[in-house]
């Protein structure tokens, strides 16, 4: 009896493993770890759109799965490791706080490829990727500078890390180029996603005369507030026009799709390698959402020409002269900021009002 049972078990195991093998040969499993809910706007939304894009472009060759709202603490490592253990061969971890957990898991799963967004640590099987969102920020600054009547722009920001400071400075650079009298006011909310705080910050900025708002946080609360109060706003991460048909001038958006598609393809054909990718507007990974109907043609064509110049490399956002808040020239005319300087950006340029929270 027990003999027969054993044989049956063995056959069952064989069948099961056979099924597994055939499933594995058919497709590449890609895992995504998200810091927020996928929702319908914002940072995580932009990553999830790209995930769907890859699924659609490589239909039949890849399957994807994701885990959303994963806290950036001790839980992240387990989620990443589980994805790896479940046979995902390519894993995208899409928030800065996943850097060290990803690195630890990458060490344990040398055959799995890991891609971490916004970080600075790489290993043999862990690459990093980022988009030059500051380019789109700069373009949105041109629109804001041309639109404002009060010469006061409001910026709702999350944490004073280089990525955010770079965005504020790029936006300000754009604003000042078309409107030297304007200034940018910043309110920090110390959160990536807190619609109530973001709304409060937006209201504060409106009380301080700001008539064009933008934000570096994950929700659309700032756009909604602007719409309700009858001022303008510029979205971030994804097109947020659905939240404010009148207020939404444009948005600086990320398009991770091309990066994810490239990475998936390279794993499929075996050419994947760990690298530090920082792609810009010329690759179509950062861009402006369509401009609002109310934006005059003159501004539209200005944005188009600047965008073309950025794409061709004729100009860079932080071409000199770049002055700091005290008016001291930090980058002289004829020079531009290096990538290393951009990565460590921890000071405000001229035109930003107020103090950067200092360490």
């Amino acid at each position, binding site marked *: 009896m027990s003999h027969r049972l054993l044989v049956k078990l063995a056959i069952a195991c064989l069948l099961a493993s056979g099924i597994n093998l055939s499933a594995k040969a058919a497709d590449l499993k890609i895992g995504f770890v998200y810091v927020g809910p996928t929702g319908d706007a914002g940072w995580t939304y932009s990553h999830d759109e790209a995930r769907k894009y890859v699924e659609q472009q490589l239909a039949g060759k890849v399957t994807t*799965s994701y885990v959303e709202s994963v806290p950036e603490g001790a839980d992240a490592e387990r989620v990443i490791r589980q994805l790896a253990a479940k046979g995902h061969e390519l894993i995208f971890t899409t928030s800065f706080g996943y850097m060290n957990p990803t690195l630890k898991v990458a060490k344990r799963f040398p055959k799995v490829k890991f891609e971490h967004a916004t970080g600075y640590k790489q290993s043999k099987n862990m690459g990093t990727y980022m988009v030059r969102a500051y380019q789109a920020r700069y373009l949105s600054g041109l629109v804001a500078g041309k639109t404002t009547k009060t010469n006061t722009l409001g910026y709702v920001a999350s944490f004073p890390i280089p990525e955010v400071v770079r965005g504020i400075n790029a936006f300000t650079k754009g604003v000042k180029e078309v409107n030297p009298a304007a200034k940018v006011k910043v309110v920090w909310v110390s959160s990536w996603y807190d619609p109530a705080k973001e709304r409060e910050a937006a209201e504060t900025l409106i009380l301080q005369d700001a008539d064009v708002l933008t934000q570096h946080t994950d929700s659309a609360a700032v756009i909604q507030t602007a719409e309700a109060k009858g001022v303008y706003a510029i979205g971030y991460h994804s097109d947020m026009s659905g939240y404010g048909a009148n207020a939404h001038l444009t948005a600086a958006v990320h398009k991770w799709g091309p990066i994810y598609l490239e990475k998936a393809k390279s794993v499929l054909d075996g050419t994947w390698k760990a690298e530090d990718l920082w792609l810009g507007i010329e690759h179509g990974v950062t861009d402006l959402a369509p401009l609002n109907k109310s934006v005059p043609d003159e501004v539209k064509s200005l944005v188009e020409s600047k965008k073309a110049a950025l794409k061709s490399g004729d100009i860079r956002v932080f071409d000199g002269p770049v002055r700091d808040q005290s008016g001291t020239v930090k980058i002289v005319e004829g020079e531009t900021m290096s990538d290393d300087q951009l990565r460590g950006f921890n000071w405000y340029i001229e035109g930003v009002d107020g103090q950067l*929270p200092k360490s």
Partner: protein
Amino acid sequence: MLRLERRPSDSKLMMALSPVLAIVLTLAAGGTLFSVLGHAPGQALYTFFIAPLTDLYGWTELGVKVAPLMLCALGLNFCYRARVWNIGAEGQFIMGGLGGGWIALELMHLNDIWILPLVLLAGTVCGMAWAALAAWLKTHFHANEVLTTIMLNYIALNALLYAVHGPLMDPDGFNFPESALFTESVTMPLIHEDYRLSISLLLALLVLAVMWTLLTRTLLGFQISVLGEDEKAARFAGFRTRWLTWMALLVSGALAGLAGIAEVTGPLGQLSPHISPGYGYAAIIVVFLGRMHPLGILFASMLLGLTYMGGEMVQMDLTLPKSITGLFQGMLLFFLLACDVLIGYRILPASRQNPQTAN
């Protein structure tokens, strides 16, 4: 309709039956939820409750979650027995992690064996000191500890944010809000090198044994219980109620602080803005779920830890959104706590008037 009637004394039968009833209700409601969403209910429930624990790795990960939950909950239990409503385990956890983490960063380049115990002690003392603030406010100004401990949670979180954005930030970390990684000498020893489970679980089990003895076998435990049952009686008996309030808060703060520093020097390995995924708050649920008994707290922490892991599993395998897994977790807790009503009360049809309540 139905109405609740107080039982003359608690029902022994329902005390045993209520968890069973809760589990049946959860399975039924959860099964319905998953099948409405188009998943086989049996498979979904299996993925949620069983799949995370099908291998040793899963059990060790459960331990990683159970240890901090248990430490916080055992301390809170001590407080709640005395009817001192400490809602501040979250803040005490964070201060433990922050204070101990700071000492760890200062001393981590030394290689002595006493460094780690010193760091753990520092964390414990910091947690205790944070709770002492609430104890002082309560005993000197009669400030309600519910309010003060909640407020102290926010202060602790902001102190942590300040530290990782400022003085404790990794100097080589490109301004990202994280400390440097801890060295080996300030890292909790692992139980086995292949898993993340550290000796903090053993500490938690030791504390369980101590607390159990303390509550049932010592004068202090007795005094705490009397204080909780009837403060006047406690005073009449000559117990120093002030001193007992201090003890309750200090013990609770110390344990939360220990949990915090064990987490920081354990699975996290550095200070970051996200050292607690809400353990201090979850521990409150654990205490009541465990019916304020040390052994009950062990099982309740395991159950709560499992629901987090099951939630991740369900997201990965069934691609269900986080909101659904959160909904299911909420349902489970609701049924467990709601069914406990049946211990003290019975349900009767509303039409029949009860002579006792008719007056």
